[in-house]
């Protein structure tokens, strides 16, 4: 029985769909499979990408500001050149000495004021030697302001032993270096940096041992307080780079260009420094979008073809309805609604199947140690968007059949 207040189009659309049971079930299944594929694939891709990006970015900043490279220029230039004569100067590439970013405090303050920027951390990094007994190892000494830098690279998370509380005479080293030198937390290391006259050395205490997940990095990376690095590397008060994180990692390149334009300091985003990786990620995104588009298209054609058949099957009913005084607009809405309802029902079911698939996948696909391969994000936005898009697709797909239904000549329809 018709419930009070129910609109004409709803009542008739639902009843027609219920009457054409098998057709309705088939097309809903078709839509559901399409939507399930889209939901499952999108979540998988999003999880995979965010996992990749997290791995790439967890050990580095989104944008790195570097001092300008030293450039060699021939001395005789411009006015000094003899007119009519070309000079073929042989220019040797200059040595890149460790330099500080000019006015880095002003630059850092300027960047920090940009709305897209999250964290700005000064870094003084250079090469050094660690000496213990007769063993010597080359290391990269990274001087950091812990409270800022740990917001960019979460060393706390990677710490195996000790603590990340970096004081003036403390050093954090990797597991590999610790085992090569046979040291642990509390042991002292002799660090030498620079050469010749500028050579400096000091004794530092290991306060923590970390694991970056990479053997080379665990051997070479060490972290000390900014001031310690500055004095060891001969950069008093200076920094060799500024690490920056931004809100939207994909906009890093744009922000890097803005920084370069505003400050005149060379700035490289993770996108340029990991160009190949980024190309792979964006190719994947493009492929994903293309697949989604074509699955959506085939769902739309499925709905349109089923409705076209329904219009033919129901042409007699349409004629009767028109004879009863039902308007063309009502007939149009009646069939649009059927398309929308089919798509909505299909996408609800499809979202459910997709979500189930994701849960199952998360249970089955595991690392060797039993932890999930990576965390899948069940983004409610994804499901919302899938429902909305599918329903819109249904409405659009229903448009052509609905219009042909509305244009049906009642005389022909009834006679037929």
């Amino acid at each position: 029985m018709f419930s009070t207040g129910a609109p004409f189009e709803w009542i008739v659309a639902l009843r027609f769909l219920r009457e054409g049971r098998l057709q309705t079930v088939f097309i809903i299944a078709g839509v559901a499979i399409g939507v399930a594929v889209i939901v499952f694939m999108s979540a998988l891709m999003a999880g995979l990408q965010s996992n990749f990006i997290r791995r790439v970015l967890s050990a580095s900043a989104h944008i790195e500001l570097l001092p300008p490279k030293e450039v060699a220029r021939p001395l005789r230039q411009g006015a000094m050149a003899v007119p009519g004569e070309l000079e073929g100067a042989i220019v040797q590439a200059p040595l890149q000495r460790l330099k500080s970013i000019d006015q880095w405090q002003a630059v850092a303050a300027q960047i920090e004021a940009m709305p897209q920027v999250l964290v700005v951390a000064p870094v003084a990094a250079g090469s050094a030697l660690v000496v213990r007994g007769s063993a010597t190892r080359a290391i990269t000494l990274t001087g950091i302001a812990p409270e800022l830098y740990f917001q960019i690279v979460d060393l706390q998370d990677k710490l195996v032993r000790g603590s990340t509380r970096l004081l003036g005479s403390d050093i954090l080293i990797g597991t590999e270096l610790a085992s090569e030198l046979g040291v642990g937390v509390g042991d002292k290391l002799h660090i030498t940096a620079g050469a010749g006259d500028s050579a400096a050395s000091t004794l530092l205490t290991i306060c923590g041992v970390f694991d970056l997940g990479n053997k080379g990095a665990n051997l070479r990376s060490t972290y000390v307080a900014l001031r310690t690095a500055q004095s060891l590397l001969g950069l008093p008060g200076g920094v060799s780079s500024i690490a920056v994180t931004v809100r939207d990692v994909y906009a890093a390149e744009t922000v890097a260009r803005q920084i370069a334009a505003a400050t005149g300091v060379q700035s490289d985003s993770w996108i340029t420094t990991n160009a190949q990786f980024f190309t792979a990620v964006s190719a994947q995104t493009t492929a994903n979008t293309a697949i989604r588009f074509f699955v959506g298209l085939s769902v739309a054609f499925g709905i349109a073809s089923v409705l076209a058949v329904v219009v033919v099957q129901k042409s007699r009913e349409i004629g009767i309805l028109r004879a009863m005084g039902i308007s063309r607009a009502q007939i149009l809405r009646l069939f649009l609604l059927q398309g929308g309802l089919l798509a909505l029902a299909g996408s609800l079911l499809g979202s459910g199947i997709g979500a189930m698939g994701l849960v199952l996948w998360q249970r089955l696909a595991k690392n060797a140690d039993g932890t999930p391969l990576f965390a899948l994000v069940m983004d409610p936005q994804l499901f919302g968007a899938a429902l909305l898009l599918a329903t819109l697709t249904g409405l659009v797909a229903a448009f052509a059949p609905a219009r042909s239904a509305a244009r049906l000549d009642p005389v022909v329809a009834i006679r037929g």
Partner: protein
Amino acid sequence: MRGLRKAYNVGLPFETEVLHGLDLTVLRGEFCAVVGPSGSGKSTLLNIVGLLDRPTSGTLEVCGEATTRLDDQALTRLRGHSIGFVFQYHHLITAFTALENVMMPMLGAAGFANPAMRVRAAALIASVGLTAWQDNLAGNLSGGQQQRVAIARSLAMGPALLLADEPTGNLDTKSADEVFALLRQFNSEQGTTVLFVTHNAELAGRCDKTIEVIDGRLTG
């Protein structure tokens, strides 16, 4: 109606004129039989009077309203409110019950379901004597029953004009008599004008007036 003509395929070499200038006035409350051999244009005439089809030329007034210049939307509204149809093949919508079929024109006109529709539809179903079957799906009723439901439905909007295109055409004599009696009853009780197409000379004789269509012209 004045000088009503209907031609198909106008302007093409095989243009065929079905109705050749009919002049006809049907008074309010009249019960007219429309008779004539098959293919004479009876159904075309009924479709035009019922505003389902437009005349090629000529004018048509329904309930005092000139229809020639109305657009499709206005025609649909006029048709919905003033004209009821009963077809030969009882054309009910099989996805709905008898009662729901009777409610359908009211639902379409109002746009939304309300309890008053149900009450009126139940009363109409009762007046054609089918209360016991009102919740059966239309497809499960017998031919005579379906035709009675169709009559109840055609009266749902309280039309001034009822067009019946051979409603008794494929019913047995008893059912045909019942259907005819119902039409007559509503004609006398509610003053509904009825145009009743039939091949049955006996039934035609029981009408107030007989219009005979032969080869697209009126005789008699």
